[in-house]
């Protein structure tokens, strides 16, 4: 951005030259420092780097375009972020108990992480029983969902479902609401993991159906939510997977915005109105421990998205320009060595996210590098957020790092890099094309390798791993116990009993309708919801769609 000439330009230039000499004399060998995104970091920033002359255009005021200082006028001063901890373990009753514990300790919204078998699109009776409930909750039927959400006031609490296409968990949630007499229009929350591209290129968790089928269901799902679910955010575009897989912060932001552009352009091609669907696009990011880089990443992404939504996608409603995001502290930065140190890491990461202006935060438990979190560690993670908010007073001032010469200069530079990367994806023909060509996977893989090399060579310190090592007994920590085998057996028996008891004709009809919807052009999410309400299981819905739309193969580049 063009900077007007500073009124004291000569004095500043003179002063900086004087300081540079003194700095060079004092530092034996001032080495170059670059952040993870490759931006060279100077030892000092002054008004010569950022003078604030373009304040109105580049920053503006909170709640106003381009939203650099935050998407709402009151930001955290008015309403703190949502504390949303990821939860998922065991059978539905185990999940329900952990949920109630977290809600009692200050969590203000819920999430559901299903068992990996669910992520893969299978019922409990289709996979190795050893793995059931060891990582996420086993939820296959509407009755499982009822038990999981027993006593949770669905009309008042926001639910994030980690629920990739075809969104069966949302279908079960809506079915439970109807059973309880709650209008589905009152259900609020987000379809986490709805960003199918990120699964194909980064964490490979959710290959239920081939990418073209997933692409269609996503637009069907957004369309359904636009019409029927005013409180639901159908899309969460996920930068977190890519950054956890190795993308730098700038790459993760760029690829996320490119994905969002792709989804928005798909919706526009379907005839949907950006002023209707964009206000319910949300984003989900990783917060690494590279503190200022993360703050700048979020501020730059927010400003850039506002411009893209307005200028490229043609949205006119200011709500469509807002960059709403949930963030999670980075698990990749946590260490198995000296695991309690992870509490300090998570604290630093969380502060970066808060200063970055997030709307919702998950803080990792310190023991995630050892196992699925224990109850005690999960409570410390929630307490960390409470301490930052109410003891450290991080919420008193909106965008407190705004106006820092360094942070503003870095925000500008990160934005330039993110834009250049988006241009690269555009040149490949958009995100789907870039993924099919392997451009994105190659980029992420190279960055992962570069970071590992930096750790390996000691250029990047990791306390307890390549520096400050101590002999220690990490075995003293008690990792979470796996669910008792008897509970898993009972869950399997319940699934068999459910399948035997339901109205078989209605299930067969609904699955037939689902197959026909897949062959034609009827809304697929509506058909998924009807099938779940008729008693179809998650595995049956996924199997039907896999048969009709093809199974997705990994798109991997080594």
């Amino acid at each position, binding site marked *: 951005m063009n900077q007007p000439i500073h009124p004291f330009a000569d004095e500043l230039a003179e002063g900086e030259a004087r300081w540079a000499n003194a700095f060079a004399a004092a530092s034996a060998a001032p080495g170059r420092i670059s952040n993870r995104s490759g931006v060279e970091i100077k030892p000092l920033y002054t008004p010569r780097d950022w003078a604030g002359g373009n304040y109105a255009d580049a920053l503006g005021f909170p709640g106003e375009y381009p939203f650099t200082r935050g998407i709402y006028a009151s930001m955290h001063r008015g309403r703190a972020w949502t504390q949303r901890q990821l939860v998922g373990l065991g059978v539905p009753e185990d999940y329900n108990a952990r949920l109630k514990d977290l809600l009692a300790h200050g969590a203000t919204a819920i999430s559901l992480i299903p068992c990996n078998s669910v992520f893969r699109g299978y019922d409990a009776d289709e996979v190795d029983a050893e793995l059931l409930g060891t990582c996420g909750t086993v939820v296959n039927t509407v009755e499982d969902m009822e038990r999981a959400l027993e006593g949770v006031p669905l009309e008042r609490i926001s639910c994030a479902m980690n629920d990739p296409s075809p969104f069966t968990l949302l279908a079960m949630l809506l079915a439970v609401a109807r059973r309880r007499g709650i209008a589905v229009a009152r259900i609020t929350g987000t379809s986490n993991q709805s960003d199918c591209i990120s699964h194909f290129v980064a964490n490979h968790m959710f290959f239920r159906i081939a990418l073209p089928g997933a692409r269609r269901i996503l637009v069907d799902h957004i369309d359904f939510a636009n019409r029927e679910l005013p409180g639901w955010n159908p899309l969460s575009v996920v930068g977190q997977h890519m950054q956890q897989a190795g993308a730098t912060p700038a790459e993760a932001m760029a690829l996320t915005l490119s994905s969002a552009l792709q989804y928005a352009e798909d919706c526009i091609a379907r005839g949907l109105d950006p002023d209707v669907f964009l206000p319910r696009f949300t984003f989900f990011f990783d917060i690494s421990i590279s503190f200022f880089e993360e703050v700048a990443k979020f501020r730059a992404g927010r400003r850039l998205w506002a411009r893209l939504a307005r200028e490229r996608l043609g949205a006119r409603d200011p709500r469509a320009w807002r960059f709403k995001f949930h963030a999670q502290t980075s698990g990749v930065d946590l260490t198995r060595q000296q695991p309690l140190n992870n509490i300090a890491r998570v604290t630093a990461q969380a502060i970066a996210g808060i200063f970055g202006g997030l709307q919702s935060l998950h803080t990792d438990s310190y023991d995630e590098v050892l196992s699925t979190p224990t109850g005690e560690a999960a409570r410390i993670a929630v307490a960390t957020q409470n301490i930052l908010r109410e003891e450290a007073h991080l919420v008193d001032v909106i965008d407190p790092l705004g106006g820092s010469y360094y942070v503003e200069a870095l925000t500008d530079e990160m934005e330039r890099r993110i834009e250049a990367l988006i241009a690269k994806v555009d040149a490949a023909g958009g995100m789907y094309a870039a993924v099919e060509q392997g451009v994105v996977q190659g980029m992420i893989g190279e960055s992962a390798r570069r970071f*590992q090399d930096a750790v390996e060579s000691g250029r990047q310190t990791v306390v307890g791993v390549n520096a400050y090592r101590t002999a220690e007994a990490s075995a003293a920590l008690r990792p979470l116990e796996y669910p008792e085998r008897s509970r898993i057996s009972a869950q399997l028996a319940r699934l068999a009993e459910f399948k035997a008891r339901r109205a078989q004709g209605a299930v067969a009809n609904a699955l037939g309708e689902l197959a026909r919807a897949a062959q034609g052009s009827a809304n697929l999410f509506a058909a998924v919801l009807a099938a779940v309400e008729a008693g179809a299981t998650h595995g049956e819905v996924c199997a039907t769609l896999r048969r009709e739309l093809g199974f997705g193969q990994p798109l991997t580049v080594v």
Partner: protein
Amino acid sequence: MLERPPKVIITKIGLDGHDRGSRVIAAYLRDCGMEVVYTPPWQPLAAVVKLAIEEDADVIGISSLATDHLLVPKLIGALRAAGAAEVQVVVGGIVPPADEARLLESGVARVFHPGASLQEVADGMRALAGRARAAQEGAAT
């Protein structure tokens, strides 16, 4: 020194798809001069056994971040049943201490945890390839 470079399979079994670790390790071992056979995630156990025999692999490296290591004892049983007991099995990733003891008991040669350096993994793989070759020669004579 081995006559030909160690041959290593880097794979993931079970349900999880997070593959950053397996990709980084595969690329590093390849750059160290090893012959690396890399597979996408979710390999059925029988497919891993078949691959190990067809490729005459010395070591199978299983990357596990989300409890898939619980299936490794079954994999070792399947390797033995197929007459490929000399193939060394290594697990890398998130493995709780109690599970590590059980894995070692079941015949896993080594468990690498987060923070293990790439060099340490490469050295370990090389040593285990030597052990696999010795076991194979022992069985042949």
